[in-house]
């Protein structure tokens, strides 16, 4: 990156018109540093210039929402003086270039967002997409992304409690790594990022600043991937979880003592964005002296210091009389703390190199004036995506199809990944990965204040089939996972992973997806409290499947007798609950047969919401022993998973089920099991069989020993690495 080259603004990703806009607002030509800062602040990644208008359509309010979009993380009130902060964010492009550090710093970044509002991170979840498992590149990316997530989360002592992984060809070049963090705080410890108090000191906490991650937001995150991406590796940041562990404890203790006025993490665009956003929110100015910033390399230019994305750094505002105690506490935690500037009343971001002014920009021009573009959506006449290759012959019988589905990347057990994550540190985890459809974490050590349920979901292939219905389904799936453990959703965070929004068909996907998210959230009464947008996810082969990822946090009153996925006792009655209208469109089976549908059946949102309430109530009353939602692979796969998890067989008859389908998919279906009276009295439940034996028998369709189902289901992903 060389700001001296000809037409440097274009190299930095700014259009000629945007450059003119900058000149106009400055009243002069920007110097190299200013241009670099503007190019980042006005990048898609920081400025949301193609998505901001659309995002305004999303519902963001609720009486229990304490902080909504715009803060470092969304925060909801969970009662008893406690607040829960959460957010999901992407780290796709860095992970496609260098999966280990890309994924690791994705986790590091989302953790900082959560402790930046004063919450202690208590859980991480991740949502991953790669190409098919038979691709060596995909296995490499998957293997190292998982190692990277584990490396960071395990060493910092925050449990990774859930997540999802899919393998689809459109993610071959451009994988997705989305990480979500959930944190908990006493309400009075919450803090915002707005800078306040003219004359207050601006203090940089944490790691030294180096050349890693220079231009990450503009070079990596705001353009399509292409050949020669290895040369972009220097744009990937390097994570140091040990540094962040000290930084986390130190920040929380500083907040505990009320030593800070505001706090902000340094993420994309480093000091440039953190300082200008703090100033913008506080309607103040900030002076920074880059010569005071502790460096890894002595000869860094002021512009490099301003845009470095070195990890494990935070910026805080401190009253002068508290500076001494802040520095002393940082020293105890062995965290570097350096006053590098001051809050001013100028409404300008002024950058000094010692006594020399090297940059002077109106904060408003950097933040609020970022140009916003209207999308030009247009529905494509033909599918943008080729049909997937057929992997199952058309005449395959039900037992062959079930085995093929359980062995497919989308359905097979993800134990390979989740066993590489510490899911229990913190002693809150009541339901670990694969125990239940949502992870469950106690709010207080004895479970006395209830528990949180968390889940993260999305199915890009179904969104590719139908952006509106597919996105709506992602919200329903997440809410259903919460209902399966009796939790009521409190809020939602999303990450919109899409291709190049300047292309009409991608703009159309984006617009329809946002409409789907909005309608589903309104129907369920769930506010969207924060999120992130990742655009330009395209490789040489075209865009990724449009992939809105939804993370949800819910509360449940009593974690004492929660159901699990697995069948628990021979003789228990099995029933199907919910407005489940399965279809092969967009299903895993259809994928294995080499087809991709256009359009998905419409969804009755009110019926969906009612069914969720019914299941939630039954779970809270302790009537159900096993609960599992029907998702990828349809009812047959859901039943197989209940059998595998419990080590018990089942005898099932689908004759009484209207529109029954072994492998059809769609929202709304939940398999429940328990004592006969408890299950049969459940509103809308249709009894379909009984737990028992050592095989899954579906009358007239298939009969397979549970041991065989288990070995296929558990063995598929390890076999890909053998």
């Amino acid at each position: 990156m060389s700001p001296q080259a000809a037409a440097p603004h274009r190299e930095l990703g700014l259009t000629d018109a945007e450059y003119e806009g900058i000149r106009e607002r400055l009243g002069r030509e920007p110097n190299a540093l200013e241009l670099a800062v503007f190019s980042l602040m006005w990048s898609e990644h920081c400025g949301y210039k193609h998505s901001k208008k659309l995002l305004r359509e999303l519902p963001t309010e609720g009486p229990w929402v304490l902080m909504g979009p715009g803060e470092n993380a969304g925060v909801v009130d969970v009662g008893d003086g406690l607040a829960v902060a959460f957010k999901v964010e992407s780290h796709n492009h860095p992970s496609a270039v260098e999966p280990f550090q890309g994924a690791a710093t994705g986790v590091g970044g989302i953790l900082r967002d959560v402790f930046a509002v004063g919450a202690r991170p208590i859980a991480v979840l991740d949502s991953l997409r790669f190409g098919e498992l038979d691709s060596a590149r995909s296995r490499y990316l998957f293997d190292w992304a998982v190692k990277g997530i584990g490396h960071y989360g395990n060493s910092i002592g925050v449990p990774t409690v859930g997540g999802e992984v899919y393998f689809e060809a459109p993610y071959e070049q451009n994988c997705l790594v989305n990480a979500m963090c959930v944190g908990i705080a006493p309400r009075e410890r919450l803090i915002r990022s707005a800078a306040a108090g003219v004359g207050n000191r601006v203090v940089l906490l944490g790691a030294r600043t180096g050349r890693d991650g220079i231009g990450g937001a503009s070079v990596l995150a705001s353009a399509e991937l292409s050949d020669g991406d290895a040369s972009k590796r220097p744009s990937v940041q390097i994570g140091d979880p040990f540094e962040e562990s000290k930084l986390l404890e130190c920040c929380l203790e500083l907040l505990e003592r009320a030593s800070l006025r505001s706090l902000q993490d340094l993420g994309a665009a480093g000091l440039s964005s953190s300082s200008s956003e703090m100033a913008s929110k506080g309607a103040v100015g900030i002076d920074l002296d880059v010569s005071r910033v502790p460096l890894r390399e002595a000869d860094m230019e002021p512009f490099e210091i301003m845009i470095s994305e070195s990890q494990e750094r935070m910026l805080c505002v401190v009253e002068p009389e508290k500076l001494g105690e802040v520095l002393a506490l940082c020293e105890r935690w062995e965290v570097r703390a350096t006053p590098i500037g001051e809050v001013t009343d100028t409404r300008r971001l002024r950058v000094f190199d010692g006594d020399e002014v090297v940059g002077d920009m109106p904060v408003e021009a950097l933040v609020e004036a970022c140009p916003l573009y209207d999308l030009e959506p247009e529905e494509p006449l033909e599918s943008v995506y080729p049909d997937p290759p057929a992997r199952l012959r058309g005449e395959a019988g039900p037992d062959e199809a079930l085995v093929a589905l359980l062995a497919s990347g989308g359905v097979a057990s993800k134990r390979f990944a989740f066993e590489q994550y510490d899911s229990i540190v913190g002693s809150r985890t009541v339901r670990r990965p694969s125990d239940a459809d949502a992870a469950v974490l106690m709010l207080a050590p004895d479970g006395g204040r209830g528990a949180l349920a968390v889940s993260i979901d999305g199915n890009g292939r179904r969104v590719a089939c139908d952006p509106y219905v597919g996105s709506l389904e992602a919200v329903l799936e997440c809410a259903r996972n919460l209902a399966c453990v009796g939790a009521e959703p409190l809020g939602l965070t999303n990450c919109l992973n899409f291709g190049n929004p300047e292309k009409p068909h991608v703009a159309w996907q984006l617009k329809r997806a946002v409409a789907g998210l909005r309608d589903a959230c309104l129907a369920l009464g769930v506010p969207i409290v924060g999120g992130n947008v990742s655009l330009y996810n395209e490789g040489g082969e075209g865009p990724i499947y449009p992939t809105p990822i939804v993370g949800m946090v819910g509360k449940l009153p009593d974690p004492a007798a929660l159901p699990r996925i697995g069948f628990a006792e021979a003789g228990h009655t099995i029933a199907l609950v919910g407005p489940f209208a399965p279809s092969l469109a967009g299903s895993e089976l259809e994928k294995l047969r080499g087809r991709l549908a256009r359009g998905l059946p419409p969804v009755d949102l009110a019926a969906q919401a009612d069914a969720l309430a019914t299941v939630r109530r039954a779970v809270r009353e302790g009537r159900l022993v096993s609960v599992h939602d029907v998702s990828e692979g349809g009812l047959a796969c859901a039943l197989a998973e209940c059998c595998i998890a419990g080590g018990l067989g089942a005898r099932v008859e689908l004759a009484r089920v209207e529109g029954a389908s072994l492998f059809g998919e769609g929202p709304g279906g939940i398999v429940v099991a328990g004592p006969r009276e408890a299950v049969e009295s459940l509103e809308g439940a249709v009894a379909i069989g009984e737990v028992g034996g050592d095989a899954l028998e579906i009358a007239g369709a298939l009969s397979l020993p549970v041991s065989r189902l288990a070995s296929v289901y558990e063995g598929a992903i390890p076999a890909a690495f053998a």
Partner: protein
Amino acid sequence: MKFGVIRFPGSCDEVDALSACRRFADAELLWHADRDLHGADAVVVPGGFSYGDYLRAGAIARFSPVMESVEAFAREGGPVLGICNGFQVLCEAGLLPGALLPNVALRFVCRQVEVVVENPETPFTRACRRGERLSVPVKHTTGRFYAPRIAEEQVVLRYAPGHNPNGAMDDIAGVCNEAGNVMGLMPHPEHAVDPFTGSADGGRLFESLATHPGLGRSRSSLVGA
């Protein structure tokens, strides 16, 4: 009776260990830079990634000021329990035999496993029966125990058949020193003190120490007791 639980920079499981100890006795955190053990009757060196596991797991923490006091405490016969990273620290400090090598699979593994109590005559396992099985989780990358030789009575815990998660020599999950007052184990008993979160079996280790007649009130030696 009071437990002291050390907190190094980068420790992760110290608060969980503290809570586990408090189910059975008093307990307090001990700061790594402080040589004072604050009158602890037993010391727990907890799990986590002290100093980021940089250089080698446990290699840096072993030189903390607090470890000088822990070594002296151990030499005087005070009971010291090292869990996971704490086990690694105690091996690095020479308080326990052997070393912990990277798992055979070269991956982090988090899994509930069963261990068998091989020696119930230590201050850490006196509440258990010989051959009793305990369900406790493991979570580590560097947990494959190896020692050129070790006396059978120093093997306190073994992974149950089929449960060895890391390729440890002879399925060894936990060992003690010759005197029997220092123990290290890879599984995390502090994450198995409540059936709510999976199992309460790990509580037996804390219970063993908390109810030890030789502990409490004044610092006492377990050696030869």
